[in-house]
């Protein structure tokens, strides 16, 4: 039974080019489907503009899909702003890249962690205080840091505080959008370990969005590779990172600089990722694809099951 499921979700924005350009639709997310089970992590990887953050916001219910449906606990996501939506939102929490931006600079750490408890009317004053102390302990923040303000904390400590706040309402799903990208390696490892520990202890499901494949491999049970709003490959992280089938995943995986000998020969793509507002015909990746054939420019490949059970959207990969 999945906790969150997206079924054929699209999100279309309307943007203008230039000051007086005609508004044109931009498909930030185009017909994607996935589901996340309790206690599991789905990693979403891709480059800027691929729609991974938009996917996160749709999953959180902050943005409505233009098309397709989102089910949380088997129930359709209520419209934003309604009481049902607010109640559900407490069960869905976001942690993003910039903890300082996510915090109120004037409030102490303890006050920020307590805030969601007050908003959702959880516990009385002393219960809340105990709960805040327990939450801070869970995320590994020393008790004396509770009375500090965000700017008096290091980057890693801030991210822990944001996490404590996110956990206050006992969420079932955590959307983590580049949660460790701004942190140094040694701190990043601390936060990643803490996230996986908390997931294990609390059975939280996670949508882990990142451009860093190494980090995604570390935390994910399943991974989806996105390119220009669509999922191009989805499945077991070990399989995908060891032997990517989609040419884009292959380029992405091979682009990761690693110390020591590499397993996959580097594929250096030419050109920049295209603009979502100016999407190539057929497979959006075909202009940069080293193995593209005529069919790639003509038709959009479906996401189909490949031999080992993973999903791949490429005309050149044989279906199972």
């Amino acid at each position, binding site marked *: 039974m999945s906790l969150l499921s997206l079924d054929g979700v699209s999100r279309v924005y309307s943007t203008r080019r230039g000051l007086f350009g005609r508004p044109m639709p931009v498909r930030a997310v185009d017909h994607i489907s996935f589901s996340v089970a309790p206690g599991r992590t789905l990693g979403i990887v891709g480059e800027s503009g691929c729609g991974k953050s938009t996917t996160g916001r749709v999953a959180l219910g902050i943005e409505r899909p233009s098309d397709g449906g989102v089910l949380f606990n088997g129930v359709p996501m209520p419209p934003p702003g309604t009481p049902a939506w607010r109640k559900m939102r407490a069960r869905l929490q976001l942690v993003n890249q910039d903890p300082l931006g996510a915090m109120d600079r004037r409030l102490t750490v303890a006050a920020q962690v307590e805030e969601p408890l007050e908003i959702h009317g959880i516990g009385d004053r002393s219960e809340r205080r105990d709960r805040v102390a327990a939450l801070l302990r869970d995320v590994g923040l020393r008790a004396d840091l509770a009375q500090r303000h965000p700017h008096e904390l290091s980057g890693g400590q801030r991210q822990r505080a944001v996490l404590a706040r996110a956990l206050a309402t006992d969420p079932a799903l955590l959307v983590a959008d580049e949660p460790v990208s701004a942190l140094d390696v040694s701190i990043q490892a601390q936060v990643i370990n803490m996230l996986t520990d908390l997931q294990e202890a609390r059975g939280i499901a996670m949508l882990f969005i990142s451009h860093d494949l190494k980090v995604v491999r570390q935390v994910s049970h399943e991974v989806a590779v996105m390119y220009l709003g669509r999922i191009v490959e989805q499945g077991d992280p070990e399989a995908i990172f060891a032997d990517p089938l989609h040419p884009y995943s292959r380029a*992405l995986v091979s682009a990761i600089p690693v110390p020591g000998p590499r397993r996959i020969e580097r594929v250096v793509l030419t050109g920049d990722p295209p603009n979502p507002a100016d999407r190539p015909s057929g497979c959006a990746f075909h202009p940069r694809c080293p193995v593209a054939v005529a069919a790639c420019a003509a038709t959009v490949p479906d996401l189909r099951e490949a031999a080992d059970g993973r999903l791949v959207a490429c005309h050149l990969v044989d279906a199972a």
Partner: protein
Amino acid sequence: MATPLVSIRDLRVSFHGLPALRGIDLDVAPGEAVGLVGESGCGKSVTWLAALGLLPPTATVTGSVRLGSQELLAAPPAVLDHIRGGRIAMIFQDPASALNPVKRVGVQVAEALRLHRGMQGATAAAEVLRLFDQVGIPDAKRRVHIYPHEMSGGQNQRVMIAMALAGQPELLVADEPTTALDATIQAQILDLLRRLQQETGMALVLISHDLGVVAEMCRRVCVMYAGRIVEEAPSDELFAHPRHPYTCGLLAALPDMVGPKRRLEAIPGGVPEPWNMPPGCAFAPRCRHSTAACDAAMPGFVPVGPEHAAACIHVQSAALVAA
């Protein structure tokens, strides 16, 4: 090592009395690729900004930076202007903001040509086109006339590189050149830098927080921590046999791309604040091998192999050799 191109000795920088660099010794040989790795605030960028006199006047800089026989730290502005861009060029992390938003990119490259190679007018314009081609900017004829905001991040970094090449420098200092870029674009830029280094024979100093990037690009790597170099080794050797506990910790904290998944070994605690530096080894408070002796004095460099040295008093102890 052959006669070094650049030789840095006991370089120290402080801002308002707080130390940022606490004694750097570093040589760069002609044509070699050296990596500087470390976490934010370790001083890897400050080292080169100080060397080129690019720090704000609030910084106090002491020590020595020699380019050949020329001392840079006390050099008059006219001498520095000739060296910057002409003999040592530098590119930065965020190419979009590193280029002047109100000037056409071609003009910005031509400025370097005029300053360092006396080129003007049609000669300069032709050379700008050649440089754009060399750094792989497609449709160069049109692109020289556009503005930075009309280009992607990757293309802007190529413009920065073209600008750096304009002065035909002997050394290119690349400060986190791909950190702001997407993975596939990062691969393109690293590829380009590697190719250009071979073509031109210039030396490359690559500053990065990413151990993988440095490992791929550089023959020799220096690891920095809290304003000092703590380990220096050929890169293959460093990643296969790290010796300083900090280097070991960094590698253990990094998730792998291959092999069995393992729990990351985080380094406990955080980097010491500049106003709260430990008396001896700056890493001692986070180090599981530390003893009272670590706090007694700043550890000197201990040679542990050919071209390999680490600033740790326990580096010869059994526990660390095994690690």
